[in-house]
């Protein structure tokens, strides 16, 4: 499924790199620990987190993630958005908490690495 369809289905707001929503998403990973994401997320995964500072962009770029979903209605810091825009990393925001958004992604058929 493409990122733009997921954005639409889950009614998320796009905060950066709207140009890169045509990307195919292969799965997901949820964590607030950066090293955990470095170790366990995979290319083309969506990353669900409550982290909002700019280091999430470096992780997303290095891991070639499809995008980052920020939960609980938190807003990414301005530096984060600037960097994400520049690097082409889509950042999406949702009012839902992690448990809920992951559940819905699962319903759409997405899995992590089990």
């Amino acid at each position, binding site marked *: 499924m493409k990122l733009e369809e997921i954005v639409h289905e889950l009614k998320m707001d796009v905060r950066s790199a709207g140009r890169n929503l045509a990307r195919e998403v292969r799965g997901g990973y949820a964590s607030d620990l950066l*090293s955990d994401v470095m*170790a366990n997320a995979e*290319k083309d995964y969506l990353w669900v987190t409550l982290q909002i500072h700019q*280091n999430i962009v*470096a992780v997303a770029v290095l*891991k*070639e993630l499809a995008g980052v979903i920020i939960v609980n209605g938190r807003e990414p810091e301005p530096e984060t958005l600037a960097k994400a825009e520049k690097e082409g990393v889509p950042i999406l925001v949702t009012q839902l908490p992690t448990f809920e958004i992951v559940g819905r992604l699962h319903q759409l058929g997405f899995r992590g690495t089990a």
Partner: protein
Amino acid sequence: MGKDDGFGRVQELSYELKVGEVMTTTVITVAPDNRVGDLRELFRANKMSGTPVVAGDRLVGIISIEDFIKCLADGEMDCPVRMRMTEKVEVLYADEPVVHAIHKFDRRGFGRFPVLDRKTGHLVGILSKGDIIKGLLKKLEIDYHEEEIHHYRASHIFEDILADKTAIRLKYDVRGKDFENAGASASALKKTLSRLGFHPQVIRRVAIATYEAEMNIVVFTPKGQMLADIHPDHIEVKAVDKGPGIPDIERALVPGFSTAPEWVRELGFGAGMGLSNIQKSSDKMVLKSKVGKGTDLRMTFFLYR
């Protein structure tokens, strides 16, 4: 060697690039009637070991530091260049592929070749090994440290492209507590490795390990450096710092162990997983550290496992 390694790309490029694209176009020359004695200052000031001799637009010879020294020994410093120069000059043409030049350097052992325009026969430039390396790296859009190329192993890198041996070295400075640029070295190295054409899987492993090492320098030390040596069959990345050091390495390696301060943990660091990520993604990891002196971490990645 396959196409999935950086050196394959370098070799391809050496066929595509022309001598005229990488040569130095501002050439210092002397006239046949100049005194040999005047060469001393010219060679010294320009750090040259030889220079073309030109009459009008025509290349008539080349005179080297050895010719100069012989002249000096004979006590004939007033002698004109014409009498002491080598007339039969080995040249390159601007439209030749760089790979010809590489072979010529290899066979002749000369430091530089005059470059002629094939049609007019005029001298249009001069080519050194350093020019070739710079040209190749520039084409690959690789940031290199000019100093490194000149002083560190200029001829080395060069022979190595040829002989499928060592090594392109890339160097990145990392500042402690600079979370704005944190991850920049890992990103730059990743970019360079993809430009060189390495296999994505290798690139991913290097990216994870380099990122973790870089973050440890950012989080725990005032500053440090990342050095990446790219060899044909492996990549070695060193992360060195003069920070506080690690008192108990064995303990630091235990997944989950972290001394990261609270404010850093709030940013998502401090899971205590960095070093074990490095161990998992590299083929070999050597960690050395002295309290109060600093830490030296080496990671090796083999390209063919």
